[in-house]
């Protein structure tokens, strides 16, 4: 299927993609996660053939696409701003790709009709796209990308332009549509919750390379490094300076500036540890937010470290509480 090899690309003199590689299997949905400006969109454009990499290769079934122009690749790309043609109505937007394939009018009409039906917008065919709401535009853009039956579908922050409520609703719908299409999908987002909800596999893009590649569970349980853990919001990242007592763990790697510990909020225990642990803290309650069954509480230790923990009880602001993590609940990560 798709194989991306050693892609290099600079942006305004600085390296943006720095020898990036990954593979994609048939019917697989992968999410490409990264901060904004990390080169996610650029990577999609390179795969689509709309931009050229300085070196590296994009291959499909082992065939190098270097000399295949964008319009002959058959890869669908849905842009972040949807890029609906403002001079065409809903029907003509969806029909565009089919017209480029020189399908017959009857075929186009049938196909577009089905697409409109699947997004429940049959009555919108003749509407100008400029009159659509954000969610409707998103649906039309997706239908337009799927209409010419691409080998591969790429979505660039498809829900990025929508507000929170609509996003959650549409994530559901999108997952269904993507599963039903049986196409390989590359889904780009900076929102890890959206990614966890959609992907078979997650690729984390950082500093121009894929720093981690795995299932959501793998990523959640074993983040490759401190940056990934921080980016995914897995918990408190604590360095040696934040600890009160000296380091004494034998099962942990040598303490150094390079290493940090991941303390997950839900593993925090209240009070004082019975066994010896370096992860014993005392601090003032900064914040205590009701999250449903539990409270998310923020503490500040005398050293100024802010810790986020989950507690069953409500704490008064400014109250002094003790909290610890047992050694087996803590992960040591590379910085």
């Amino acid at each position, binding site marked *: 299927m798709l194989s991306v090899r050693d892609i290099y690309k600079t942006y305004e003199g600085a390296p943006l993609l720095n020898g990036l590689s990954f593979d994609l299997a048939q019917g697989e949905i992968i999410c490409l996660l990264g901060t904004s400006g990390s080169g996610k969109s650029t990577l999609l*454009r390179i795969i*689509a*053939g*709309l931009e050229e990499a300085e070196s590296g290769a994009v291959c499909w079934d082992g065939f190098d696409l270097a000399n295949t*122009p*964008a*319009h*002959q690749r*058959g*890869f*669908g*790309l849905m*842009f972040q*701003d949807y*890029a*609906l*043609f*403002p*001079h065409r109505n809903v029907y003509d937007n969806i029909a*565009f*790709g089919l017209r*480029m*394939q020189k399908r017959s009018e009857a075929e186009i009409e049938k196909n577009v009709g089905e697409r409109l039906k699947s997004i429940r917008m049959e009555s919108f065919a003749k509407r100008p*796209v*400029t009159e659509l709401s954000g969610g409707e535009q998103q649906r039309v853009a997706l239908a*337009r*990308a799927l209409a*010419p039956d691409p080998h591969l579908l790429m979505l660039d922050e498809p829900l990025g332009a929508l507000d929170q409520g609509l996003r959650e609703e549409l994530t559901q719908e999108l997952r269904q549509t993507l599963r039903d299409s049986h196409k390989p999908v590359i889904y780009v987002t900076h929102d890890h919750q959206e990614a966890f909800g959609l992907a078979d596999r997650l690729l984390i893009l950082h500093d121009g390379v894929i720093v981690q590649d795995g299932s959501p569970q793998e990523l959640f349980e074993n983040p490759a490094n401190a940056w990934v853990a921080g980016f995914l919001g897995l918990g408190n990242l604590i360095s040696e300076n934040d600890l009160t007592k000296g380091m004494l763990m034998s099962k942990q790697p040598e303490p150094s500036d390079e290493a940090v510990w991941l303390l997950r909020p839900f593993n925090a225990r209240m009070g004082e540890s019975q066994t010896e642990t370096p992860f014993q803290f005392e601090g003032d309650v900064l914040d205590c937010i009701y999250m449903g069954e539990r409270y998310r509480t923020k503490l500040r230790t005398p050293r100024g470290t802010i810790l986020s923990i989950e507690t069953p009880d409500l704490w008064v602001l400014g109250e002094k509480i003790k909290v610890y993590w047992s050694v087996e609940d803590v992960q040591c990560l590379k910085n």
Partner: protein
Amino acid sequence: MTRMMKRSIWQTLLLWSLPLAFLLVFFYQPLVAIFRLVFSTQFSQGWKLFRWSQITKPLGFTLYQATLSTILTLILGLPAAYLFARFQFAGRKFLRVLITIPFILPTVVVAAAFNTLLGSRGWLNLGLMSLFNLSSPPINMLNSLSAILLAHVFYNISIVIRMVGSSLSRLNQNLPLVAQNLGASPWRAFKEVTLPLLMPSILSATLMVFLFDFSSFGVVLMLGGPQFSTLEVEIYNQAMNRFNLPVAGLLSIVQLAFTLLVSVLINRSNQPRYGKAAMASESSGLRVAKGSWEKAFVIIMVTVLLLLMVTPTVSLVTRSFFTFEAARGERGELNTGFTLRYYRELFENREQSLFYVPPILAIRNSMIYAGITMLLATTLGLISVYAIQKSGSLSRFLEPLFMLPLGASAITLGLGFLIVFGSSVLTQGRFQALIPIAHSLVALPLVIRTLLPALRGIPANLRLAATSMGASPLCVFREVDLPILFRAIVVSLLFAFTISLGEFGASSFLSNTAMPTIPVAIFRYLSQPGALNYGQALAMSSLLMVVCVAGSVIIERIRLPGEEVF
């Protein structure tokens, strides 16, 4: 309450009365006079000699040359717009400024510039003559259609570059990309997506260029020679050389009808159809040309634009410092080289012939007219924008009333003045007084377009706040409005000043032989033989060009962003 409302209605009426009276007397009255003259039986003897070809021939030529000029302007202007909207190259900013210069140059200056390039005494001919030892100029591009077309392209290319270029650079670049992604080749994507989205601005620019080419007067008169006459030139000929006012009037009406038609079309096409949907959130970045095709495109376009834009003006200035004439008494011995003589002569008063007008007199006249125009147009403009502002929803009907003079040409205005004020017992002195009035009418729409957005931009709360703190209406104007409007007022003053300095059409009707303006004097010197006349015309043109360029540079500097008159 009712008393207050009554008072404000009276105030509004008072504001309206002055500019309206001015327009009625000096714009609508002459216009009506032209109509009355044409449709009256008073000139029945004139009608007997009238042939329809007198109308159709100049109209046909006007349409022909305007169409050709517009097509040529588009052929060069559209790629140039693409160049500026997409590519980064050395000297880009400089070239961009350069391209806007022709637009503000008076027609006489442009005509003189092309004369120094292509005329029998121009650089091209001088060069060829010295190269091949010829005794007479080998090429004659002056007095030809190509000279007219070239000058029109030179003049109007900036309209295409500005209008089409700005919508191209704001166009969402993802749109053609998504088309390619959906299977359209780059060319197909351009044809199906980019071009249709640019069409409204291309259409507006085309109509605008056509309108300017259609009503071109100075360029055709001075570069086309006697065998070519557009409607405007024919009006001038009929009125000034044949004294056939009815035919001139009829031509004016035809001209007016066409310009109004095109103006209406421009207004229609200006309406943004796709709005924000086609626009990118930020204007797209420029890139350096890649690949041999793009590089060749950039190099060729930059070269062509530089040649077109720079050569005429540089040629004008250099030629004005260059003497090329037989020294006195030595026939055949040519005295060539650098000279400041033409500039010195501008300020010397020689009484050589009966028709000779000292240049310094023309300069003095023009300065006086420009000064009066500047004050008159800006004062009227200020009153008018307050009147428009005060009348609320009524302003939709009243605003076009002030904008209409933009559609009527200066020639029509001159003719109307001649009919209204020429028939009565008017001395030449009073005729002179009409020149700044005509100039003010030409400048007024631009002044209003400059002042109105600035005035509308003042938040009403500011005035209310000042009033609540005890400021009288006059005090509010002085303390709130005036400081905020200051920049716009300075821009208006400069606009009016430069327009008056360069105005040729109406001045050629109204100035008498003894009291010319600078452009009229240049025109006269150019059409007379003799190296001194020629040199003086060039020296004056160069000075006028410097003043106009300086004026527009200052205008660009102090103008607030987003206030484009065109």
